[in-house]
């Protein structure tokens, strides 16, 4: 489907250029709407009855080909879908894949509580951003509706995490729905329990219960039929599970692509829903003795964690909107969270900081000068480390067009000419009584060029910014006095 143009949107706006939305003109507002930087509600004129028709058309026009579905609490929710494009370079991907961790209702109360709290508290900080987990997938391992309900109570008493209720047993889901305080995601309506599950859900819906429902089938055509039937019953917050097959994950990935392509490129509204992936199936498969990497890792739980992460990361590259994991080790979750952060970074926003001179701590004329890049990931990693380690220095951020050190050295942006300009523009020579620049370890190949062009002495520092504190404590006084001896 062709992407809508700002002109298509403009035609439906009041065209009064009243500026009440905060934009200079209706056309400017249209462009913002097109890029999802504004919402239709921000135009007060459109609320007038005579624009009702246009407003409706606009909402329809702007609604994404993949429906946005949420669950959880109004102030703490997991949002799935809402996507517009097949490739992130075309615009951006909007709602980062929600990551859930399973909890079995067979666990003792204390364990349920602890695992739930673990999920809520887990955080991995990168480049100034806190990367977190999004929901708890409570699974009805006991098969007992009463135990299931009790586990819901334990979780919602101790945490404020969105919950996915996972059971094929309609009675269990019903019991849980009666006790749960948030809007849950329900796993799942299947081909086998479809009619019974929907009947129960219809009656709950009539009693004002809110929920999002996962439809599950190995067959995309069946899934599409299930969507149609659900919509006819007024159940509209849907998610699709086309099965996760641990033996042949490429089958699963193909289905993800087919569903998303049908929705976005072919305009198939009945498949325009978020997709659920189950890396946990890979985990269980390996744990059951199918260990394809036993040459390297014999412990089944570790191998399962590796293979689960591999499935999760492949799915992140193939449109998955929510995943359920079993493994909770930091080494497994870190790459998954980092990849999600990367894929959902908005390519329209520059990944750079302002080049220039940044005083870190309270530097004086004897403090070292350290030169990094203006790639924001690098810059925030460096400043974060310096802060943690109490480093005091003059930090130069070179305009490398937002490239990391090694890439910028290879690409020729981290070079003598740029260093010379930076030194001149920032006037750092007046701030210090030496002419020494400390370079990152990865910038060693650029050292000669920088010394030649700037006339400053370059010292190649450490490979990683976390080692700079120790490096300076051990070496800086010596480096400085040697330089002074040689240059006075």
């Amino acid at each position: 489907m062709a992407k809508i143009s700002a002109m298509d949107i403009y035609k439906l706006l009041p065209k009064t250029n009243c500026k009440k939305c905060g934009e200079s003109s209706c056309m400017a507002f249209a462009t913002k709407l097109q890029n999802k930087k504004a919402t239709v509600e921000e135009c007060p004129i459109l609320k007038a009855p005579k624009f009702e028709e246009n407003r409706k058309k606009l909402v329809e026009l702007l609604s994404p080909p993949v429906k946005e579905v949420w669950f959880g609490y109004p102030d703490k929710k997991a949002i799935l879908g809402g996507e517009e494009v097949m490739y992130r370079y075309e615009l951006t991907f909007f709602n980062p894949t929600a990551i859930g961790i399973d909890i079995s209702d067979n666990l003792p109360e204390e364990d349920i509580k602890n695992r739930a709290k673990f999920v809520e508290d887990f955080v991995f900080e990168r480049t100034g951003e806190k990367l977190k987990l999004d929901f708890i997938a409570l699974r009805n391992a006991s098969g007992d509706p009463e135990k299931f309900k009790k586990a819901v109570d334990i979780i919602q008493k101790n945490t404020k995490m969105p919950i996915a209720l996972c059971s094929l047993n309609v009675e269990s889901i019903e019991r849980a729905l009666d006790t749960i305080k948030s809007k849950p995601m329900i796993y799942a309506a299947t081909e086998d329990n479809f009619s019974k599950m929907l009947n129960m859900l219809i009656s709950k819906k009539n009693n004002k219960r809110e929920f999002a429902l996962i439809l599950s089938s190995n067959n995309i055509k069946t899934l599409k039929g299930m969507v149609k039937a659900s919509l006819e019953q007024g159940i509209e917050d849907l998610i699709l599970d086309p099965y996760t097959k641990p033996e042949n994950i490429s089958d699963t990935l193909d289905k993800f692509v087919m569903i998303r392509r049908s929705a976005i490129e072919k305009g198939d509204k009945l498949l325009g829903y978020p997709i659920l992936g189950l890396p946990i199936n890979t985990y269980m498969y390996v744990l059951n003795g199918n260990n394809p990497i036993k040459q390297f890792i014999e412990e089944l739980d570790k191998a399962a964690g590796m293979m689960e992460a591999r499935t999760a990361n492949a799915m992140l590259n193939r449109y998955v909107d929510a995943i359920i994991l079993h493994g909770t080790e930091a080494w497994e979750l870190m790459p998954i969270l980092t990849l999600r952060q990367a894929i959902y970074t908005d390519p329209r926003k520059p990944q750079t900081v302002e080049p220039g001179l940044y005083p870190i701590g309270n530097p004086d004329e004897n403090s070292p000068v350290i030169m990094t890049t203006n790639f924001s990931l690098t810059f925030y990693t460096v400043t974060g480390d310096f802060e943690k380690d109490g480093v005091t220095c003059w930090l130069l951020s070179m305009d490398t067009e937002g490239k990391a050190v090694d890439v910028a050295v290879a690409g020729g942006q981290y070079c003598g000419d740029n260093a010379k300009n930076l030194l001149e523009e920032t006037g750092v020579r007046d701030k210090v009584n030496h002419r020494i620049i400390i370079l990152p370890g990865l910038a060693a190949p650029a050292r000669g060029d920088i010394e030649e062009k700037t006339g400053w002495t370059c010292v190649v520092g450490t490979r990683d910014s976390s080692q700079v504190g120790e490096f300076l404590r051990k070496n800086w006084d010596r480096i400085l006095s040697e330089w002074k001896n040689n240059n006075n």
Partner: protein
Amino acid sequence: MMDFKELIKLVEKTGRVKIDDIKITADEIAINIPTAPPLKIPQTPAMKRGLMRSKPPEELKIEIPEVDWEVPINKYNGYIREVQLGRPKSEGGRGKVIKIGGQRALYRFEDVQPNAPVVTFDIFDMPMPGLPKNIRQYFEDVMEDPVEWAKKCVKEFNADMVTIHHISTDPKIKDTPARESAKLMEDLLQAVDVPFVIGGSGDPKKDPLVLEACAQVAEGERCLLASANLDLDYKKVADAAIKYDHNVLSWTIMDPNMAKDLNKRLISHGLDGNRIVMDPTTCSLGYGIEFSINAMTRLRLAGLKGDEMVNMPMSSGTTNAIGAREAWMVNPEWGDRTYRLPLWEITTGLTMLLSGVDIFMMLHPLSISIVKEFGKLLTSKPKYMETNTDNYQWIRA
């Protein structure tokens, strides 16, 4: 005048009553009319649902309707070139031949993917400083001897290809002369029968000389010369490939237009387009991998659309991932590095694989085995494998 009781009786009897010309005079009237049986009117679904609310829900059978749907297959006007690495014995070569590229569609459900992605093992002509311990553990015994190193990759880890990085040729390291590198190259070619990627040290002046010398001793073996780029004498590298029958890695920095520009220059210099593999640069997971995703995706799509200047197979220097602090650093909060390091490389590799990359330069044998296996699955024929696992087993596990 009419008695209300009589009116009610009438209603009960007939179900309806029509009163014409009625006049009521009273200060206050209260009329209680008993419910009349409902009129029979055709019921709409909305009313059915309305009734369900008041009565205990009578289960209605909800069927899954038949709907139309077709597998969304796209048409592609272009194709990806197929590049051959190695020379078969029948043509006087050492044996193993690897082909990469050759796709005519993005996904295997659209068209057969002719060649599985390939992983080539990195080895170095001197012990690589700073190689993390959990990689060293696999190669400690052979790191002093690149020939043994190559043999170990092939024998123990089933390597399809090997990449020799002549890092010691760097004037700032050992400044090993090009003819010595060529000598090593000869020994390597004799030791194993897999195709080679030949890499320099990254020194723009020295690399073309090293690559040329190695290309000469490997004449006809269809190696991949790594690399030609805009910072060095790429014509010299192309000439070596043309003269001695090799392929060229065309390396640029994450800019599809730059990749196109370099390919054009190589082709107009006389290099056959089917002898080019592109490396648009792999940024590690966490260090700009999203830029690489975009660059690879755009190049692959442009190639399939028919742009013959960018329809070459792509290469990824996945080993870069090991340089990420999250991979190598010892940090108890980040969990065991034994698993974290390969997973960082695997995640980087898989992401590049799913963005279209055909050949991977990697280090950790575990990472290599996972990426290779995944590549095989992605290029297998759909439904070649029976799957019997229960999608719902995890709920009760």
